[in-house]
């Protein structure tokens, strides 16, 4: 009997290794790692665990919500697989993690669109053939059908859009009128000192302020334009009561009226509160200013990692995530509610759910917004943010 790499291990583990098909010669590193993780899981959970029965394992890096059992369990069952999750709390962090080596273990990623697009030139994401996804795109809103330019890098389609929403002032209509927020001027009004909340979500609060200053942050900026961004951020910090990274803090402030408006967020922040019945909290988009749309459309997208050893299964999972049933679940989570790119999902909404999602408002927001993409000077703007914040107090 020939000696194998696992023959010195106890019989129990040898059985598990054979059961998982890890006894083939020339194992790929990623498959070995996944198998090791599964074996550890088996050891802990017992031989009757689901992991031991699933034929394959996959790893899905995503925002919380994409891992909802109502989305993933049917997929696991239909494909005899076990999807594990690597939850991200911010897109740059997820990107950095993939770059640092996690791309060897992850099969599929759902993140903010600019970061998905960046995965193309970074050599992380696989190029997708839109024809392979024709069945998926058939039920998409026209706006997200191929060629969907923001997800194309060097002529290559990097991902499929999944969920979207808009960035604009978040307000409590009991304490302020939405009409007042047809411009970002209230952010700078001395009467609103210590009543403005700014989300500490990287570029999110910077980009709308740049737009308010008449600068399009999605274009290459010169020094004069960056100086305008500096001025507008400096003015914004004068009225800022708090810069929060946590949704609940901003939501609480809006609800109790201690905050008049929240900048750098949008439908992502307000929808969960609306779901709880607080329809007085809403995300609006200011009117265009000097021909420049003031709102921003954010989109989340899903891409398949280049190093996946299960491209077909990853493709199946991607299609499953954007399907009608998954879309309904994804758009109405407890933590946040947002519209999805699959138009067919709209048929499933009740009038109440449409109201929560501001479905009647979404195309108005779209028409008055920029599409969020890679801002070429974002590092300069983030550096300015740090400088002005340090100087603000």
């Amino acid at each position, binding site marked *: 009997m020939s000696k194998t790499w696992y023959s010195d291990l106890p019989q129990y583990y040898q059985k598990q290794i054979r059961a998982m098909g890890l006894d083939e010669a020339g194992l790929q590193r990623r498959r070995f790692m996944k198998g090791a993780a599964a074996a550890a899981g088996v050891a802990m959970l017992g031989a009757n665990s689901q992991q031991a029965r699933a034929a394959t394992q996959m790893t899905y890096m995503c925002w919380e919500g994409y891992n909802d059992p109502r989305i993933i369990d049917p997929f696991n069952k239909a494909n005899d697989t076990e999807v594990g999750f690597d939850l991200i709390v*911010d897109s*740059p*962090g997820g*990107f*950095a993690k993939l*770059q640092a080596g996690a791309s060897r273990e992850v099969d599929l990623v759902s993140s903010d669109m600019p970061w998905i697009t*960046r995965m193309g*030139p*970074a050599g992380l994401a696989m190029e997708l053939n839109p024809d392979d996804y024709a069945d998926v795109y058939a039920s998409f809103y026209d706006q997200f059908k191929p060629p969907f330019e923001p997800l194309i890098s060097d002529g290559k389609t990097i991902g499929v859009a999944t969920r979207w929403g808009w960035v604009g002032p978040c307000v409590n209509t009991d304490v302020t009128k939405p009409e007042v927020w047809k411009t970002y001027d209230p952010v700078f009004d001395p009467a609103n000192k210590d009543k403005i909340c700014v989300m*500490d979500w*990287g*570029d999110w609060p910077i980009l709308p302020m740049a737009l308010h200053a008449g600068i399009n942050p999605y274009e290459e900026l010169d020094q004069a334009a960056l100086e305008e961004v500096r001025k507008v951020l400096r003015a914004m*910090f004068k009225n*800022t*009561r*708090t*810069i*929060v*990274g*946590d949704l609940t*803090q901003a939501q609480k402030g809006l609800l*109790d*009226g*201690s905050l008049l408006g929240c900048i750098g967020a949008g439908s992502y922040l307000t929808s969960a509160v609306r779901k709880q019945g607080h329809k007085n909290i809403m995300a609006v988009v200011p009117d265009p200013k000097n021909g420049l749309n003031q709102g921003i459309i954010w989109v989340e997208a899903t891409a398949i990692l280049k190093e996946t050893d299960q491209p077909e299964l990853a493709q199946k999972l991607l299609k499953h995530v954007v399907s009608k049933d998954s879309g309904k679940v994804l758009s109405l989570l407890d933590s946040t509610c947002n519209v999805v790119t699959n138009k067919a999902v709209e048929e499933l909404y009740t009038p109440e759910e449409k109201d929560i999602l501001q479905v009647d408002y979404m195309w108005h927001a779209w028409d008055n917004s920029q599409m969020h993409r890679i801002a070429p000077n974002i*590092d300069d703007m*983030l*550096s300015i943010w*740090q*400088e002005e*914040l*340090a*100087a*603000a*107090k």
Partner: protein
Amino acid sequence: MEQTATRSWHDPGLLVKALPSVLLQTTCFIAPLLMTFILTFQRTRDFQLRWTWDLATWTDVFSKPHYWTILGHTLVMAAACVAICMVLAFPIAYGLATRFKRFENEIKILITFAFITDATLKTFGWVLFLDKKGAANFLLSGLGLPPESVAFLFTDWATLLGMVYNLLPFAIFTLYLSIDTIDRSLILAAYDAGASKWRAHWEVTLPLCKPGIWAGSVLIFLLGVGVFLEPKVLGGGVSPMSAELIRQTFETRVNWPLGAALTLVLMVVSVFVVLLFSRILNMKRAGFGT
């Protein structure tokens, strides 16, 4: 002497015993620190690390004053936290070691419970208490005080409150251990020699507590310069400290070389401050400056 030296460095048994410690220090401290240092000479472009080997990051660190403004603010906040913690912790630790010896275990359990409760939970609890519409203002307005009497949430004072609250147990326990080991007969001897309670405390108890005060101060200072949650949640993020600056640089800007450089600067400056104070204390102990 020579024999001692031979036993110290040429004894294979001793080398074997030291090996785990050396390996641990090398792999878990020196190697990561070295990697961090190497990282500072690289650059990021398009959110990706480029191996360039230049001084651009260090030029950036030394040419932009806001990094140093934030560092200075961090050091002041940490020093203030040390001072407040020591003032608050000393009577608590003293009482625990002397007056309330009978309830020592119960009090220690209570402090330990507060200590092991998640800092995030405690910090957010303070937000609910100090908020404009929070419990503090509700209670005070019930007593007839004007609405929103407590209005220091999202200021440096709120940050300091959170820092003191979360770090106070470290001061209490280090001081308690120090006070508990004091030989009571020395204090009784001071009384016999005619010293008042205050004088005995000043000239016997306090000097004998110095190691505890020093250890607690260093611990709180080093933990204080690294606080992240309190300035963010209680301070409202409007007056950031170094840990938040480093987080932003690593996570939001994905500028790992700059983040690494800022981390090293914070480490070096913190250790320098501790060594400086240590030196001043040693000089005072040796009789200089008195």
